[in-house]
Structures are given as C-alpha cells and as structure tokens.
C-alpha cells in the first residue's frame, strides 16, 4: 500500500517537474523562465523524494538531506541568475513593469 501511495506521490512530483519543463519552454523571457522552470522543480523534486521515502523508509534521512540541500541551493542559484540577467539588462527602479521580450542579446566573449 505504501508503495502505491509512494508511486502516486512520485507521479505528482513528476507532473510538477514536467510542468517546470513546459514552463521553461513556453515562458516568454528569461525571468519568467527562471520563475517557471527552475523553481517549480523544487516542489516536484521534493515530492519525488518523499515518494521514494515511502518506498524505503530507511532511506528517508538521506532523502531529507537531499531535499534540504535543494531547498537551500535552488533559490540562491536562481537568484544569482536572475540578478545577472537583471544586471545585464540595466537597472531600473522598483515597481517598473518590464518589457516581456526585452532580454539582452547574447554577448560574445568574456
């Protein structure tokens, strides 16, 4: 029974992961892609790990650590990425609405 529940949890996680991929694909600009793609995965990943923990309860401690680690790192990396994108685009004040397709061109070289 726990296995079935576990697998269903995993499936839900997989749905989130898939939608992250879809968001990544469909969203119009870099910021929104980061929003949809890299962060929606967190929940999906957590759910998958929970599902696995239901299969093998003895693994749960380590899975917890992995989940914790992802929770720690994922916002930091996406923040750094967004900040970089923002810096590339040029700074503007708070509350300003962004052009949806206004991402900067790819730069060549360092």
């Amino acid at each position, binding site marked *: 029974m726990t*296995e*079935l529940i*576990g*697998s*269903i949890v*995993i*499936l839900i*996680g*997989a*749905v989130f*992961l*898939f*939608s*992250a*991929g*879809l968001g*990544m*694909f469909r969203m119009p600009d*870099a910021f929104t*892609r*980061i929003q949809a*793609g*890299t962060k929606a*995965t*967190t929940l*999906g*990943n957590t759910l*998958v*790990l929970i599902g*696995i923990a239901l*299969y*093998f309860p*003895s*693994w749960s401690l*380590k*899975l917890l*650590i*992995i989940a914790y*680690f*992802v929770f720690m*790192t*994922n916002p*930091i*990396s*996406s923040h*750094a*990425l967004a*900040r*970089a*994108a923002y*810096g*590339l685009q040029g700074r503007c004040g708070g509350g300003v609405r962004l052009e949806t397709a206004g*991402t*900067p*061109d*790819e*730069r*060549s*070289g*360092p």
Partner: protein
Amino acid sequence: MAETILLAAAALIFLGVVLGVLRLVLGPTAVDRVAAIDMLTITSISLIALYALVAGRFIYLDVALVYGVLSFLAVLAVARYLERGP
C-alpha cells in the same frame, strides 16, 4: 500497478527534460540556457533518486547529493560570470 505509475512518472519527467533541453538549445540568451541547465540539474536529481529506487540501491543517493552540490556550483559560477559582464 505501482510500477506502471512509476513508469508514467519517469516518462513525464523525461518529457520535462526534453523540453528543458529544447530551451537549452534554443536559447536565445545565455541566461536562458543557464536557467535551462539549472532546471535540468534539479530534474536530474529526481531522476537519479528515482533510479536508485528502481535499482534498489541506497548508495546511488550519494550520487544525487554530489551531483546537486556540483551542479549548483556550476550554475552559480556561470551566473557570477555573466554578472561580471563581458
């Protein structure tokens, strides 16, 4: 039953990966690509964990952990690189 569901889950995740890879290839900017990589790494952690489950091997989780550490650093490094500009 559970196995079928797992299979479906794996297929879904795989589809997500394909979409991510598409974004990685299409770009158009470096930030987009890195964002795609970021997304792919987390998805990969899930995939590795899932593979550990299927193979029934606890030790594979170590791989997921190390992978998480290193790929986080990779994304952070590229982000910092982009931030410093050309």
